């Protein structure tokens, strides 16, 4: 699935990923391929993106939103600190 991570200042990530873990306002959840369409607010926490070759990227965020539609995942985040693994 296609993932874009956008902050107001720049595009942080764009590309394929196999799983995205996000800190939803109602609890953490993970988005896998063919996830149902969802719009959710995000609270402060870590966004973890697993790419297909097994690498993981972690962004610490303050707040944000996630939208999933037809295997397109859009993350809008603010207050980002990225820590790549």
């Amino acid at each position, binding site marked *: 699935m296609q993932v874009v991570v956008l*902050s107001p200042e720049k595009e942080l990530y764009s590309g394929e990923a196999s799983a995205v873990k996000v800190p939803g306002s109602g609890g953490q959840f993970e988005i896998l391929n063919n996830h149902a369409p969802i719009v959710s607010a995000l609270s402060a926490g870590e966004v973890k993106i697993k790419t297909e070759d097994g690498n993981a990227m972690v962004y610490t965020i303050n707040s944000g*939103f996630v939208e999933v539609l037809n295997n397109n995942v859009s993350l809008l985040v603010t207050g980002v600190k990225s820590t790549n693994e």
Partner: protein
Amino acid sequence: MANLKEVRERIKSVISTQQITKAMKMVSAAKFRKAQQAIVQLRPYANKLSEMLANILSNLEGDAGTDYGKEREVNKVLIVVVTSNRGLCGAFNTNINKAALHTLEAKYADLYESGKVEMMFIGKKGYDFFRKRVSNVKFHTEHIDLFSDLSFDNVAKVSQQLMDAFTTGEYDKIEVGYGMFKNAAMQFPTMETFLPVPKVEADQDGSSEKAIKADYIFEPDKQSLLEYLVPSILKMQFHKYLLDTHASEHGARMTAMDKATENADELLKDLRIKYNKARQEAITRELSEIVGGAAALEG
């Protein structure tokens, strides 16, 4: 020859001024590119946000009211004037200030008279303008230096403060005057109502049609999601005011400095002709003096 020397001095001073305007133009061009980049970077984020808003609204039945959209009787107004910190950018700041002044004196004449209008300044030029012209208005200058750090989080602090002041009822309306950015040569001084937000309705163009097709899960529920989303949009909007003004400022300065450089070129051309004429005159006079002297000796 006094005249010759005078012209030479003037040519020298015009050249050095031209060097300054040229350098300022270059500097502005570089800063402009950066400022424009920031606007371009914000765009995908902004578009996605509005798309989400449209999504929710099209799935939401009934009234989509939030605290930020409540229209109240207007008893107290805050006008935020966003200008640049420095001058030498043509009529850019003056135009914004005039638009704000017009709003103050025409739209809010009654409130202005009874001292119910307050103003906040971001950028020194607006403050300088209104300090001299307007009394009976409370000035807020605590964020005047916001342009020194244009990061989103920093700007969001100010917009959050404005939003809080609106929801607690300190102000019933917040207007923002800024320089809307079109391109390097075009900036529009604009007054916009920041709060209350104009009534949010699902627009009838393609974006909402597309949204209806998908059966979204909303988390938490739509109404609370809206309450998260609207402040984010407002912050983004406010951030855009600043980025726009920033880019406009450098665009305006680029144009102004380019004109100044051109003008200096023209001045130089005239001065050089003047100088050459004066020089030629002096040579002719000297020659005729020598010839006259020789003729007198022979005679």
